[in-house]
């Protein structure tokens, strides 16, 4: 990654233009041609730095549900339980964390009611209680990172 890659990452996390040639519009202030910008984005994606190029959805406004859930998983069952949790396509993130509640995952569903089914399925599949912690109030969702 060089300075131009950093500028691409810092700029393109914000708003991507909606016009007929958006890459050309983004490339110009970076001193690139559209083809050069596209090549760099494709490279950053291949390198795993960019995970996706497109929309970040607002689950509830799409009519779906989003929640954070946690489990207390015995150490010796950790990989097995992670496999069961991750086998659900509605689970978008899953992290081990340092606490008695040591597995934390995000469930995002397209339809209302599906969240309860997924969580119940995980409880049934693992025999471990799932603690559902849906948001009550949102104070900030930036999720932007300076390269």
């Amino acid at each position, binding site marked *: 990654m060089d300075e131009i890659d950093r500028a*691409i*990452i810092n700029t*393109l*996390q914000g*708003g*991507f233009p*909606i*016009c*007929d040639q*958006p*890459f050309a519009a983004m490339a110009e202030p970076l001193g690139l041609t559209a*083809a050069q910008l*596209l090549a760099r984005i*494709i490279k950053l994606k291949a*390198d*795993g*730095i*960019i*995970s996706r*190029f*497109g*929309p*970040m*959805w*607002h689950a509830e*406004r*799409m*009519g*779906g549900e989003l929640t*954070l859930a*946690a489990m*207390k998983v015995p150490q010796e069952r950790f990989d097995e339980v*992670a496999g069961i*949790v*991750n*086998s659900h*396509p509605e*689970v*978008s*993130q*899953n*992290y*081990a*964390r340092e*606490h008695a509640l040591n597995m*934390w995952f995000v469930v*995002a569903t397209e339809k209302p009611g599906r969240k309860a089914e997924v969580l119940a399925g995980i409880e049934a599949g693992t025999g471990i209680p799932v*603690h559902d*912690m*849906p*948001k*009550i*109030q949102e*104070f*900030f*969702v*930036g999720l*932007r*990172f300076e*390269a």
Partner: protein
Amino acid sequence: MSDTDLALVSVLAQGLPMVSHPYRAVGAQLGLDEAQVMARIQAMRDSGVIRRFGIIVRHHELGFKANAMSVWSIPDEEVGKVGRLLGDAPEVTLCYRRPPRLPLWPYNLFCMIHGRDRAEVEETIGALNRRFVLGAYPHAVLFSTRRFKQTGARYGRPIHQAAAAE
């Protein structure tokens, strides 16, 4: 959402095509012209269905090797005020109020803090506690030790495709 919007969501979930006229390419898959695709994406942005439209990075690969969920137990009558203070702090990448789950989990205010390493994240959280005088509230910091999955939410895609992409 209309069927056309759902189809558009499905195509966009695969990522914007890396071509000079990406909205035209999206439209070609849906039988829409370029202007119609742009108008619908703009409408979804305006209504907030799309929170943000652009690149989504893998923070770990970008050098943010440490991430912590920093949580506090704040009385109900104060949690809104404290949440707004933390949400406005530039070091905080997410901030939510969530329900406590007693007895294991007394905390109701959740922030995500990312940093280059653990020491940097600890320093950041210490500074937040000092700046907003949060020392009196029960508090915990949960560093992540392993990442099992980070796909981003998948919408509008058949389940077999989503599973195959893991």
